[in-house]
């Protein structure tokens, strides 16, 4: 398509179409990202905010100090907990829902698809407020439901061992519909005759899933896991609204730590370093996932 035609286009006109967007992205995204890298090498704090003359270059000191800050390690650990448990759970729920919707068991498919998807478009803060009530130790619906099974009340958001699982449960509920739609599209693009061939070979439901659905869905699953991973690493609003990072800092995430360092204590140099550490980790894990996927393919 590209070889043909659009030769007589004057360059000038094309630039008029792209320049405003490129300028906006350049000034308000690329420039700040570079500035953040530079800032992470300075001691930018509240004094520098008042007068730039107080700014000093400190090299990698912010990074070294971070590595010696216990709360940063805790935030890193909490975030990894959230990602490592949350992402597989969320994808499993998405895949389950997509398989159900693809199975043509009911005529109400469109209705169920909408119901599963509804949490995705809701405002995170608002549903976090709802879930804080659902998870309430004394009046919450979840503890009431558990009481039917003889399970005593759990202090979901007040017990350091339960706060993160509660937030994960909430996040899976909120997000599974998103990946479900993508996986459903992936399922629907698998050629029907593959299943017919499997059927002729005497494959049952499980064998058909294992040898047809799973490998054919591979690239979609990889993409969905990369997207979810990067989303889950950006945990912030859930602990901000539901727990304020507590109890005993069990839900402080990397971004929550960055927010407090940057906009509460005005340690902007340190906060920039935190942002870059997070970025580096996300980048490395994405590369690793792509590498592993390539290894499986080969």
């Amino acid at each position, binding site marked *: *398509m590209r070889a*043909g035609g*659009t030769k007589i*286009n004057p*360059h000038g006109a*094309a630039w008029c*179409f792209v320049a*405003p*967007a*490129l300028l906006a*992205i350049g000034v*308000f*995204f690329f420039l*700040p*990202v570079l*500035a*953040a890298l530079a*800032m992470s090498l300075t001691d930018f704090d509240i004094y520098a905010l008042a007068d730039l003359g107080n700014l000093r270059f400190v090299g990698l000191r912010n990074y070294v100090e971070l590595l010696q800050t216990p709360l940063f390690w805790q935030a890193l650990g909490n975030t990894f907990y959230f990602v490592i448990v949350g992402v597989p759970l969320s994808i499993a729920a998405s895949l389950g829902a997509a398989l*159900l919707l693809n*199975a043509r*068991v*009911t005529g109400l498919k469109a209705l169920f698809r909408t*119901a*599963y998807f509804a*949490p995705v*478009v*809701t*405002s*995170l*803060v*608002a*549903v976090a*407020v*709802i879930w*804080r*009530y659902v998870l*309430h130790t004394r*009046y*919450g619906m979840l503890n*009431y439901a558990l009481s039917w099974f003889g399970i005593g009340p759990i202090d979901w958001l007040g017990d350091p061992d339960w706060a993160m699982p509660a937030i994960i449960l909430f996040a899976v509920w909120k997000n599974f519909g998103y990946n479900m*739609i*993508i996986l459903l*599209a992936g399922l629907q693009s698998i050629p029907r005759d593959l299943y017919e061939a499997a059927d002729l070979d005497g494959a049952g439901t499980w064998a058909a899933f294992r040898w047809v659905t799973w490998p054919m869905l591979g690239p979609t699953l990889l*993409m*969905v896991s990369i997207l979810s991973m*990067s989303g889950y690493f*950006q945990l*912030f*609003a859930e602990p*901000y*609204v539901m727990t304020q990072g507590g109890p005993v800092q069990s839900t402080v995430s990397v*971004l929550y730590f960055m*927010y407090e360092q940057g906009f509460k204590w005005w340690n*902007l140099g340190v*906060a*920039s370093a935190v*942002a*870059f550490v*997070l970025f580096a980790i*996300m980048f490395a894990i994405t590369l690793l996932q792509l590498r592993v996927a390539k290894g499986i393919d080969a």
Partner: protein
Amino acid sequence: MKKILLNAVMALAGLLAVFPLVWMVAVSLMRPGEASAFPPPLVPAEATLANYRELFAHAGIGRYLFNSLLLSTGATVLSLAFNVTAGYAFAKLRFRGRDRIFRALLGALVVPAQVAMLPLFLLLKHLGLVNTYGAVLVPALASVFGIFLVRQYALSIPDALLEAARMDGAGEWRIFRAIVLPLLGPILVTLAIFTFLGTWNDFMWPLIVLTDSELYTLPVALASLSREHVQDNELMMAGAVLTIAPVLLLFLGLQRYYIQGLLVGSVKG
């Protein structure tokens, strides 16, 4: 038998997905204190709009609703203006370095937005925009996702159509307005709902740049209200209804377009 079981699982999952939202509406109609009971009541003993009246009369929620509406609409208009022209140009116009620039933009997708937040805050502070509507709108001006979305769709416009118009002596701007824009209709709707919903639901950025409560958007206001009113479940549920209902209704009405964008956006370019 298997079919019945699958249907039951499907219905149960649907119930779990929407239960918190339905319960939110029910609790929002209860009298103050009614929801703080065990077992938690499912329906109000006597439905009342008192919580909503309280939110509008004393918590200033009308103001926040207005802010959210204004900012989301503004962001949508800006995003359409910037991304549609650029997306079309990346698909159909030739200029030096086009493909390299586009690849660089896609590469930027791996950088989380939060990396840019701290210097962007300083830049906006320098420009005197912190604590204004402008600060919330700046990140919405242009987005890589928006450009990508429009470009993928615009690729399907036949070159012959544009060539014919050029032969007839139409200028590039006129071709864009008279031929391209009408053809892009569906993707404009898609981009519009994505931007509207994204801005409406955004939390971290407005929390950072808005300090004056007069300017709060609904999510920021709700987070701050919920710290003051931890015990007032009924009031908070009413606030949640007001925050969720507008975007949920928008989504229900325009589902098709939203899902289309989700699928285009998730396919690697």
